[in-house]
Structures are given as structure tokens and as C-alpha cells.
């Protein structure tokens, strides 16, 4: 499928089924079954990897689906299931149908898979695992191996992010037989999966950012004060121009990381997450200011976007964490190596 076909299909599907009421109901505890079925049947969950299941085929399609999902605040583990399915398939573990959760060994979460004779021992904890309590299966990614675990095997303490999406703490101390574990290839170890997670969150954020800007521009054209639409005032125009700059930068950062693909995930995914995360805070600030008090109500849809932006920018690496990592990478090039390093990206 070409990019536009996928993103058009996703836009249509989400516009029909991920209405603001469905999003609010999901937050209140009603699983959006019809929406989930439609997402599954559309094939979106297997966008990454495509049929080859190999390298990052389909990354562009996956990101297009996620951008559309972000635009409509789709209250489902689309990114998580997509990534978990790709990873499980990549290492030859057949993932169950249904929503999946993903726990990744990373800077904050210590997870370990160790060989114990013919079996494996999985141990560790992960905080704020997205959608763990809704998942039919949990895929665990470490630097060494990948494991597929039944969710009952993980001790869960339920929590939610600012947007009311499930973010659950898990503790794992399990013996797994060899059928549930596979070695992690270099192109699908925890570092790669974490970066893909960051890129996926960034993709969701770009959709939410574009939509939030659109809502603010529309509102500024409709809302009349002092006898004219507030969008006619330079003070408002300048603020919305700044928001547009951030939205534009965010979109380019994600598109560039997609274009770089597997070849430069180490730099581009983190750089995109950093850049989009910064945009998220700035744009949320401006779109709320433009909307005034109505945007601070639960009734208005803006919060479905901004609460997700505020949550997602913290997940899979906050801006400062990526800055630290990218800064070390840049410094290691030597001062006169920084430009050549950038110029080939």
C-alpha cells in the first residue's frame, strides 16, 4: 500500500469509530470493541514488518496509522500491539490475537532474561507498562532475548497516565520454557525496540499536534471578541504561527526518522522523540491559551489531545534523556566530526 492509501484508510476508520464519545467512554472504562475489531480487520496491527517480518518494512505505513490514531485520540494499544506483534513475529514467537502489551528493558526498567538449562528465567520490574491490564499477551524485550508471557504471569498494579490510558506496573519472576523465548537479534534487541517505541509515540504526537493546531485555528476564526474573530488580532496570530512552526518541525522530524529507517534509528528516533516532545509542550500551551476557558472544560475535545501530548512526551524517553544520549553520541564524534555526522543524516 502507498502512504496515502494507508493514511486515508486510517483517517476514515478513526473518524467514523473513534468519536469523542467513544474516547471518553474508553477512559471511563468501556473497552471500544467495535473500534478494536475494525483496526484489526483493517490490518493496521501488522503494518510494521509487512509480510516479510524482517527489517523495518512498512515503517512508513505504521507511522501513518499512528499519526491518524493520534489525531483521533484512538484509545487503544495500537502502537504497542503493532510493535509487540512485529517483535514476536521477528523472532519466531507466534503472538496471540488481541491487544498486546510490551515491556522493554531500558533506562528506567530493569528486566532480565537468563538461560536456566533448557529454560529461561524472566525477572525484573517495569513501571507504567502501557495497556498491560488490557492485554492478551505481554511481550518482553531485553538486550538478550524476547519473551512472550501470559499477562496473568505478571503482577500488575494498575495505574493511568494523564489521558486516562492504562499504565500498569508489573513485576516478573517467572520460569519460561524455550517455546516462549527467543534470542534477540541485533536489529530487534531492547535498544532497537525502545527507539521504535519512541518513534511510534512521536508519530502519535504529530497527529495530535496537527489536530490541536487545527482546532485552535478554527476556534480563532469562530470566536468573536471586541467585535471580530480573535484570529484577526496579531497577538493571537503570532501565537498560532509559533504553534505552526512547532507542528511543522515535529512532522519533519518524524518523517525524517521514517526515511532514515533501520539505517539510523540510533540517532533519528531519539532526535525525533526529543523534537516532537518539545513541540508537544509548546503547542499545548498555545492551543489552550487560544481556546480560553472552553478548552479547559471536559466537554470540549481539546483535552483528549493535550492530555495525551503531556503523557506521551514523557514516555519512551523524556526530552532530556534523549538529549543526554544524543549529546554523548555527538561529542564522541569530536568537535570537527559533528558537522560530518549531521550532514550524512
Amino acid at each position, binding site marked *: 500500500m502507498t502512504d496515502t492509501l494507508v493514511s486515508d484508510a486510517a483517517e476514515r476508520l478513526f473518524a467514523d469509530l473513534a468519536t469523542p464519545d467513544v474516547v471518553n467512554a474508553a477512559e471511563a472504562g468501556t473497552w471500544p470493541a467495535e473500534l478494536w475489531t475494525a483496526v484489526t480487520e483493517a490490518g493496521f496491527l501488522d503494518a510494521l514488518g509487512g509480510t516479510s517480518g524482517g527489517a523495518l518494512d512498512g515503517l512508513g505505513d505504521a507511522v501513518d496509522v499512528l499519526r491518524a490514531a493520534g489525531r483521533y485520540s484512538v484509545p487503544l494499544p495500537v502502537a504497542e500491539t503493532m510493535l509487540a506483534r512485529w517483535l514476536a513475529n521477528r523472532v519466531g514467537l507466534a503472538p496471540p490475537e488481541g491487544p498486546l502489551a510490551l515491556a522493554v528493558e531500558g533506562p528506567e526498567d530493569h528486566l532480565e532474561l537468563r538461560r536456566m538449562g533448557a529454560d529461561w528465567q524472566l525477572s525484573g520490574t517495569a513501571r507504567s507498562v502501557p495497556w498491560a491490564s488490557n492485554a492478551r499477551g505481554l511481550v518482553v524485550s531485553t538486550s538478550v532475548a524476547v519473551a512472550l508471557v501470559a499477562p496473568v504471569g505478571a503482577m500488575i498494579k494498575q495505574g493511568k497516565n494523564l489521558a486516562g490510558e492504562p499504565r500498569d506496573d508489573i513485576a516478573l519472576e517467572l520460569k519460561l520454557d524455550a517455546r516462549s523465548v527467543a534470542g534477540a537479534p541485533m536489529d530487534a534487541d531492547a535498544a532497537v525496540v525502545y527507539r521504535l517505541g519512541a518513534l511510534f509515540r512521536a508519530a502519535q504526537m504529530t497527529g495530535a499536534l*496537527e489536530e490541536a*493546531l*487545527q482546532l485552535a*485555528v*478554527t476556534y*480563532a*476564526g469562530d470566536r468573536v471578541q471586541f467585535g471580530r474573530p480573535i*484570529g*484577526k488580532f*496579531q497577538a*493571537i*496570530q*503570532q501565537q*498560532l*504561527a*509559533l504553534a*505552526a*512552526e512547532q*507542528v*511543522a*518541525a515535529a*512532522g*519533519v*522530524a518524524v*518523517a*525524517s526518522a*521514517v*526515511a532514515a529507517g533501520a539505517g539510523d534509528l540510533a*540517532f*533519528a528516533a*531519539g*532526535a525525533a522523540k*526529543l*523534537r516532537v516532545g518539545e513541540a508537544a509542550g509548546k503547542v499545548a500551551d498555545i492551543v489552550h491559551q487560544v481556546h480560553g476557558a472552553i478548552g479547559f472544560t471536559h466537554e470540549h475535545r481539546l483535552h483528549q489531545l493535550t492530555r495525551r501530548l503531556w503523557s506521551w512526551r514523557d514516555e519512551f524517553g523524556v*526530552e*532530556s534523556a*534523549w*538529549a*543526554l*544520549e*544524543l*549529546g*554523548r*553520541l*555527538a*561529542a*564522541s564524534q*569530536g*568537535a*570537527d566530526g*559533528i*558537522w560530518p555526522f*549531521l*550532514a550524512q*543524516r
Partner: protein
Amino acid sequence: MPIAFRFDPVALPPACESLRKEVRAFLADARASGLWAPAGDFATNHSPEFSRAIGARGWIGMTWPKKYGGQERSMLERYVATEEMLVAGAPVAAHWIADRQSGPLLLRFGTEEQRLEFLPAIAKGECYFCIGMSEPDSGSDLASIRTRADKADGGFRLNGRKVWTSHAHRSHYAITICRTSSADGDRHAGLSQFIVDLKAKGVTIRPIKNLAGNLDFNEVTFDDVFLPLNRLVGTEGAGWQQVTSELAFERSGPERFVSTFRLLVEFARRVGANPDPRAAEALGRLTAHLWTLRRMSLSVAGMLQAGEMPNLEAALVKDLGNSFEREIPELLRLLAPRGSRSGGNDRFEETLAEAVLHAPSFTLRGGTREILRGIIARGLGLR
């Protein structure tokens, strides 16, 4: 209504990378031989010797037709050659305006005679242009200019005063915009562009010292300067359309975000290969921003190559880019407790001093941030 801006991803073709190697090798050799030293930015570091040297290599007017001295290379190749010179801090100021603006203007609107007279000399790095736009009472509000060209026998007589004209004292010609008829009704009507010979009788150039103490810009006075008819550029009265039709060329390039890049490099040199967390964080953040801006800017170059004129996208690049190049010194000074100093022997301190002193000009030259944000707001449908 969908959001009205678009940045298509661009991949640099292999020809760009071989050119990049050539440019780097030339810059390294020429620097070693003493032809140039890094300083300032595209608007300040001025060297006719350097301009002639790169002209001889075909790196001025690169995209122009061969019959006008060009190389018929792509916008992306021009981009690569340009960015390599800019990040190195090479002295491009002498040919900069002619290469980026005046030459393309003549290609699009000039007569065949004008093209043949000026373009080959520009491409050789021998003929320099400046731009006469701002006046004492006209800055962002360009349509309010009062410099006039009145019909005279065989041409026009030019009277008025331009200010902030960069390198007028080191240039051969000024593309000057002036009134050729009054602004009845439409204030954008009645403006015309001329090629003004800066050696002509009646032209007076007086330097204006800038806050850094440099003599880069000038006041240029025209006292009954005779302009032959063949120095009119394009259509009489269409100056506004001519000036505004190709703003994407001058607002989207690397010069809009790398003016202080060398400070980042000197910072990296100072903190070394294993920086402390604060330094690493600053370096990483700036690197990610620069990567994003460059991808945005390259995207605009790709659209220009495809024959589009993405003026809105260019405005987005320039305002974001100018903010970025101003942020570099603001962020890095916090990590260098002794701050800026000139006359010492510390490259970071010297570069910081230069960056801080020149930063105010970034968001003024080529369109103020307020004007750019107005253009963006218009692109959003707000005005």
C-alpha cells in the same frame, strides 16, 4: 480545512555527496594556504579573493544555464556546496547576494542583455551586488518607500536614500527598489527595480557602524542619479510582485539557522569527547534541533528544484531557524561560567562574543520575525 504547509522528504542524490567532498577538500586546502579563516557568517565575512577562487571552481551561480556562466546543477547541489561553506565559517559575503538573489532575479525577470552582461561576471566571483530596500522611514513596510525614479531623457533619474545596505561600499551594483509612480489606491503598485551602478555620479555611500563595531552596512544616497533605460529590471511598476514572488529562495537556506553553528563546534571542543551530563544534554538538544531544521530546509530546496515556490514553508524555516541560531549562544553561555571575551586566546569565548553581538541581526535581516509570523498566520487562513 487541512493544515496548509507541506514538507516532502528529500534524499540527496549521490552527485551531492561527491560535490560535498570536493568542497570540503577545497576549503581545507585553501584554509591551509591562508586564503581564508573562519569568522562571522554569510553576511559579514567578506573576501573577494575567496569569491574569485570558488567562482573559478563553478560554485557561484551553480544552478544557472551554462550560457550565463552557470553549471546547470541542481538546487540540492547548490544547497550542499552552500552549507559546507557556511558551517565552516567561510567568507561568502562578497558574492552572496548576487549568487542567491540578484542573479536569480535577472534570470527570471532580466533582459537577455542584462543576463549576458552581469551573470557571467557574478559566476566568476568578480561582480558583487547589494540590495537597496530599507529606507529611514521604511523597514518592514516596504511599500512605503519614498526613493523615486522619474522619467528622464533616455531613462530615469533616481533620488532618495537607502539604509542598512550591507556591503554597498564593497559592491559594484545595487538592486534598488523605488517608486516610479504614486501609490494611488494600490500601495503595492508603482514600484520598480533597477540595477544601480554604485560608481555612478550622484551615489554617496556612508558607512554605518553596527553595535559590534563593524562597518558592514551603509547609508546610500541617490542624488539625481541617471539610470539608463536598460537598467530597469523586469516590468516598470511590478517591483512588488518581483520582490515577493521568490522569497522562498532567500528565506529557507542554511544561512537561516547555522549562523552560530561554529559556537556549537567550539563548545564541543571545549567539553571534549566525554562531556558532563549538562554539557551533553545541551549538545544533544541542539543537535536534534539542527537535524530537524536541516531536514526542513532541504525539503524546501527539493520543492524549489521541482519548480514550486513554497513561501509559507520558507517562512516557517526562517523563523524557527533564526530562533535556533539565537538560542545557541543563550544556552551555551550558561555552561561557560567565564562567559564571552574577545582578544583572549580562547576560541569558544571569542565565538561566543561574536554570536551574542550579532544575534540581534538574525531576526531582522531578510524579514523580521513579526513579518514572518504574519505570513505564517496568513498561511493558516487567519488573515
